[in-house]
């Protein structure tokens, strides 16, 4: 049985604006973004003392006298320098009982009941109704964080999602060389030796090539600023050799410079074909509904200027 409801279901409102872009690289560092930006730093005062066996609290079943304090100079739970430079690491089990899969970003915060903070080492997709094991590392170095099996909350998740996600560790965390920072240390590009002293760049007023190749004239073209419904979008198309080599966002609903590399399109294992109209019998058809064209529109106006 098939029924069709002709409804003005959310009509006109599906102009969601979304663009996936790559970091422009101007910062050199791709700082992982945690799910929210509040920092939870465990207060020193809330950290319980290490669970070293205390001689003083031991019952003394034998008549032997309690050793003098001076006999235990090395048993004090002071971490060694080595321990202070090591980072507790281990694995947790993440369970998602919500009806869709959830992606926990790299560095997602995991908090113990007593305020110790850990981070996910990698972005982790937890399928709906599924469980995954993920590597975690302590926010601070030191043996205080080498804890036994426990449970964690995920403070970055919205309160409504928190009840669907549980995180626990089944094994103790162990101290190891810190690995977390290595991933975000900026790698400077190697210096590019130039055998010939190149002249300073002349970005403006460079003469156009005598014989333009491709469908566009070389240069940089700025598109119109277009209301993207969630903010304005303005792009700049860079044409070299008659082809689009880059598109820069000049204005967009975020505050950082980004670009989208058109060359990224050329992926080796993607196959292409000429489409062919068919009139085959099918159960249902997937087709386009109104889509936001703000990005497309601004780019189009930039390219219109670049037309030969």
């Amino acid at each position: 049985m098939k029924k069709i409801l002709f409804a003005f279901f959310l009509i006109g409102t599906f102009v969601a604006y979304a663009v996936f872009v790559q970091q422009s690289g101007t910062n050199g560092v791709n700082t992982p973004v945690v799910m929210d930006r509040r920092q939870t730093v465990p207060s020193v005062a809330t950290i319980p003392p290490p669970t070293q066996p205390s001689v003083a609290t031991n019952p003394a079943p034998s008549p032997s006298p309690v050793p003098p304090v001076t006999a235990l100079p090395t048993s004090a739970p002071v971490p060694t320098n080595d321990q202070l430079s090591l980072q507790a690491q281990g694995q947790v089990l993440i369970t998602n009982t919500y009806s869709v899969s959830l992606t926990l970003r790299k560095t997602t915060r995991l908090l113990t009941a007593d305020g110790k903070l850990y981070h996910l080492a990698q972005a982790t997709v937890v399928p709906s109704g599924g469980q995954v094991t993920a590597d975690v590392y302590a926010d601070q170095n030191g043996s205080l964080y080498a804890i036994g099996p426990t449970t964690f909350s995920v403070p970055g998740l919205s309160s409504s999602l928190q009840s669907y996600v549980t995180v626990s560790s089944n094994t103790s965390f162990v101290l190891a060389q810190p690995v977390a920072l290595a991933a975000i240390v900026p790698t400077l590009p190697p210096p590019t030796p130039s055998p010939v002293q190149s002249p300073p760049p002349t970005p403006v007023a460079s003469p156009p090539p005598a014989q333009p190749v491709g469908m566009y004239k070389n240069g940089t073209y700025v598109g119109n600023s277009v209301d993207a419904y969630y903010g304005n979008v303005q792009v700049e198309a860079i044409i070299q050799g008659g082809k689009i080599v880059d598109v820069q966002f000049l204005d967009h609903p975020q505050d950082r410079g980004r670009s989208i590399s058109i060359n990224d399109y050329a992926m080796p294992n993607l196959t292409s074909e000429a489409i062919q109209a068919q009139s085959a019998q099918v159960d249902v058809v997937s087709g386009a509904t109104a889509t936001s064209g703000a990005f497309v529109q601004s780019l189009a106006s930039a390219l219109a200027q670049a037309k030969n």
Partner: protein
Amino acid sequence: MPITVEIVDASVTDAVFEEVFTYFTSVDERFSTYKDTSEITKINKGLIKPSEYSEDMKLVFALSEETKQLTRGFFDIVSRDGTIDPSGLVKGWSIYHAGELLKKKGCKNFFIDAGGDVEVFGRNAQGELWSVGIRHPFKEHEIVKVVNLEDQGIATSGTYIRGQHIYNPFAKDQPLTDIVSLTVIGPNVYEADRFVTAAFAMGKAGISFIERTPGLEGYMIDKNSIATMTSGFERYVRLV
């Protein structure tokens, strides 16, 4: 837009259809920014405090935030003037949940199609995989590809067709750019819909984004009628 629901199971009753359509109506009542009485309109007018948001609203906000981060900030339901419109996420999300509702009612073979975004489950009336056509970008009544799906979602973004003309509905006088249609197959229509929206806006790079994202396959058509597909797309294609 029309919403089409087909349920193959013999035991299906009118009441089940009623329930699905009532659900979509309730979603519309809550999330439509074109309704003065909707919760989202009241939120935008400052009439409702965050602590009074419905659970669905809170969840949609959370999922929108997650999608924003997955698309590096460009899928954003909040405009510069602070107005919130989560519709871009709600469409796929609500189709998905309508499907879950049908499953709870014992339906084992159905599809739900809302404006070209489709969730399929089980088999069709012939006991075969559901066959889903991808609409021809330049010929409204024809298709270019047939994919066979089971328990999956599919969504298409593209430029708008009317008659023999294809144009950008938001810039009718502007020339078209290269990509006219992008279809994404995902584990469900929620995933397919939210990522196809993001990837289409990327232009040519969109298909690479889909290729890189686990669990998704895509079929992109440019203005020269050349299609590019992800490496795993072909396994869904029905040979005619």
